[in-house]
């Protein structure tokens, strides 16, 4: 065989090898994709089966002891200690004046506070905000429940209560035994809160 004959043959062989290689790459990519999809499904399945798996505190869990040690200033200049509410059914709402859905639900929380006071419920609004805008807001929209100035550090506290994403508003319902019974990230309303509370104190 002369070199001139061999050249096209080699080229042919090289092309075939390349095609095989490409096919292999394609196959492994498909396999990888399938594995990834399977993994994803598996992980969502476990999450659905046991919501407690990755949350700091899940419904039914006891409130971490450190949370009860927290103290906050109130807009009026007094001190609000969470320990004073231990052993009572309690609704804690994390909010900020710069969070429109939080501002929107303040009257709902106020209505809940007034309606369920007789059943022993307490409502605490912890503001993840600076004191000045909170005071300005409360002078315009009066609320009857306790407000604590949690500052930016309040985000960590809400995370300790299970607010993984750190979003606002975030509402936690705690029963008299100190267990977290309901958690909600995002806006809530009176009917929902009332339904939660009626389950615990009918």
């Amino acid at each position, binding site marked *: 065989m002369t070199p001139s004959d061999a050249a096209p043959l080699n080229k042919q062989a090289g092309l075939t090898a390349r095609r095989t290689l490409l096919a292999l790459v394609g196959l492994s990519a498909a396999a990888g994709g399938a594995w990834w999809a399977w993994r994803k499904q598996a992980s969502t399945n476990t999450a659905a089966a046991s919501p407690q798996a990755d949350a700091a505190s899940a419904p039914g869990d006891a409130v971490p002891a450190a949370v009860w040690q927290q103290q906050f200033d109130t807009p009026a200049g007094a001190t609000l200690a969470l320990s004073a509410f231990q052993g009572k059914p309690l609704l804690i709402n994390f909010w*900020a004046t710069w969070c429109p859905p939080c501002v929107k639900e303040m009257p709902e929380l106020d209505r809940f506070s007034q309606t369920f006071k007789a059943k022993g419920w307490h409502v605490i609004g912890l503001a993840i905000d*600076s004191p000045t805008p909170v005071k300005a807001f409360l002078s315009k929209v009066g609320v009857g429940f306790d407000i604590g100035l949690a500052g930016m550090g309040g985000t960590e506290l809400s995370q300790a209560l299970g607010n993984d994403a750190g*979003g*606002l*508003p975030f509402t936690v319902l705690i029963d008299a035994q100190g267990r977290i019974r309901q958690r909600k990230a995002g*806006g809530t309303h009176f009917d929902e809160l009332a339904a939660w509370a009626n389950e615990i104190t009918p």
Partner: protein
Amino acid sequence: MSFASAEIAATAARMVVEEGLEYGPAKRRAAKQLGLTGRGDLPDNSELEEAVFEYLSVFCADTQPAELRALRELAAMWMGRLAEFRPHLTGAIWRGTATRLNDIHLQLYCDDSKSTEITLLNKGIAFEVGSVPGPRGHDVDCLSLSIDCPALNEAIGLHLTILDADDLRGALKADAKGRTDRGDLAALNKLLAQDGA
């Protein structure tokens, strides 16, 4: 500065103060209005800023300092709220030429360019996404929201330019007059304290 560029600077300064225009558009509009279209005639930003300070001291000396202070306090409040994204104040409010017509411009030096959007969404805050020229030749996201300014009793635009954490390198370099283009919350608080004294 040539006569033409001094003329453009003075006209542009009025537009910056009275209409809240940015420096670039103000310079171009002033040049067009005066019929001075030579590129070499445009004043540079420090020349225009000087003209703006002069205009403010002549026409707005009674109102501007209080408006600037209100905007700086509002900016400081939002910088505290967005502290995790390394916010830096820039533009007229940082440099001291702002009036109530100016918006707040914050540059956020984020590790993850989407983290600010996610945080705002998680708090139910509405914003619009635009893009502005970035520091390295490509466009970057700019999130714009409207915030309440109780001190001025009106809504103020807040613009958050999303930059990379690495962009902070060299960002605080001072210019020929020893002034920087931006400052963090600590630097802003220092300005507010000086101003209040």
